[in-house]
């Protein structure tokens, strides 16, 4: 039995579609309703649908053998797992954004609002830029509008939310996409199965 942790919601559904294309069809996947665990006896698989930011925890601690998670979460929490494949879906970027008319005062401490604490710390440390980090959990866009921060660092997909709030991207920090990860111990004992799944998924990765 191979356990797979998938992020609940749109990304998880897309990953399942890829698995289906790769030959792992599971009739019950969308009939599950509110079920948290979906068994696929035919393929000897078990799916867990969990909060996207929790996938890496399930895999790192071995509750799931493999999982799919956004690179942003891997960069933020640095779990000790194997990162076997870039699935090239759920693509977006982590970027610095601020009010359209914002001009950075290089002589002052930069106030940055974000939920990506570690990514932001690493990024500004690499530039040796003095900054003050403001950790928020949601509605990050509000911070510069209310003067809580100078800029924000957040996920940008299309940029529509930013535009609606009179914000724009100043620079990109890193490109994000969904990754297939595996627990290091599980990988040792289920190598053929995990390798097989990786190879099959490789065939169905969407092109740019």
């Amino acid at each position, binding site marked *: 039995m191979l356990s797979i942790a998938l992020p609940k919601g749109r990304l998880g559904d897309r990953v399942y579609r890829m698995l289906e294309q790769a030959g792992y069809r599971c009739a019950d996947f969308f009939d599950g309703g509110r079920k948290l665990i979906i068994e696929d006896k035919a393929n000897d698989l078990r799916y867990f649908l969990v909060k996207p930011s929790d996938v890496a925890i399930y895999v790192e*601690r*071995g509750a799931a053998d493999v999982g799919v998670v956004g690179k942003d979460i891997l960069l933020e929490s640095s779990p*000790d797992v194997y*990162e076997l494949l*870039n699935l090239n879906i759920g693509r977006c970027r982590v970027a610095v954004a601020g009010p359209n008319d914002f001009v950075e005062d290089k002589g002052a401490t930069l106030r940055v609002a974000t939920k990506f604490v570690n990514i932001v710390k690493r990024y500004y440390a690499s530039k040796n830029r003095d900054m003050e980090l403001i950790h928020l959990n949601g509605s990050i866009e509000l911070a510069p509008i209310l003067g809580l921060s100078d800029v924000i660092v957040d996920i940008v997909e299309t940029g529509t939310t930013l535009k609606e709030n009179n914000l724009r991207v100043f620079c990109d920090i890193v490109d994000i996409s969904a990754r297939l990860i595996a627990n290091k*111990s599980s990988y*040792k*004992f289920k190598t053929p199965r995990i390798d097989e799944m990786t190879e099959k998924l490789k065939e169905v990765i969407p092109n740019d």
Partner: protein
Amino acid sequence: MEALTQSFSRDELVLLQLRKLFEQRGFTRVKTGKFEEYALYVENKNFLDTESIITFMDLDGKLMALKPDATLSIVKNVPRKAMAAAQKLYYVDEVYRLATENREYKVHNQIGVELIGADDCCANLEIIDLALESLGLIGERFAMDISHLGFVSGLLADMGLSHRAESMIMDNIHAKNAWDISRILEQEGINGDKRRRILALVELHGGFSESLERARELVCNPRVEEAWQELAQVGCILKNSGCGSVNLDFSVVNDLDYYNGLIFRGYVEGVPSLVLTGGRYDNLLRRMGKQSRAIGFAVSLDELGVHLKRRGQMDFDLLISYAQDCDFAALLTLVKELNAQDKKVRLEREDSDLSAVGLRYGRHMRYRAGELEEVAPC
């Protein structure tokens, strides 16, 4: 002995079995203290992350630390000059480290061996063989990954990478992340054969001897050649690894930076985290000005107790209920007789309910008028 060990949890049992194994192989026990002068870690901060060490003042105002590692405390006592004979030591120790996943301090129970002495290629074989046997005692199925840091760093040294790119590539090698490595190589303008070599290094995994053959092709300079030869020597003892699999896997990394040369990691089926970690740490001794070389490994015991539970075991074989006015002295004599027959017995007052506090027992008896009578399960 069998009866005695029944009451032990899995980690306690493993501890005893490993101690026996190490003593059988002529290793002697060394006991180090719980504390160590903080200065030891500052002097060796290239090898250990000093930021997360728990420190305190002793009565003389000296800064002390709760030991984050046992090896340093053992190595500091090794004489500077070459020794007449090797030191073969084992320890059972608690170490205090910061857990990266939740940034909380954790106490780790460890048992480990160290072989410190002159340059001796048999030392590698002896320690790896001991590591394989240890894993065999811990779990029915196990896997060991072996790598050589000289192989990886020797290969990367040829590439002319910036320091930053090299450390990013190392991180991704540890995660088997071929995709991000190929992107970094692209940014660094490395292509052709060099690129192919690095990607082959990442994707190489599997049975030791087949993988070693494939790795032969990656050898490109004397440093890598030397590492390959050392790995090849190890191959000869791996045939008798029992029900474990031994892999050559260059993604092996250790939390502690003092390793160089041969390193290895062991996993046991059913335990999601690392069970055994070890390697050669000559650099550490050289830095301390000692003329010896050393190799060793440690087994973390805590996770074993959590994940390798003895399933379905009762807390007691027998539950005996007694009334307040019974002949308790006679009952105690009876209990001792039952203990002598290897029965685990729990005495409880008549009105208490053990199942309500989650304890399980085999049979339930009532003590009445000097006799035990069976209580029918309700």
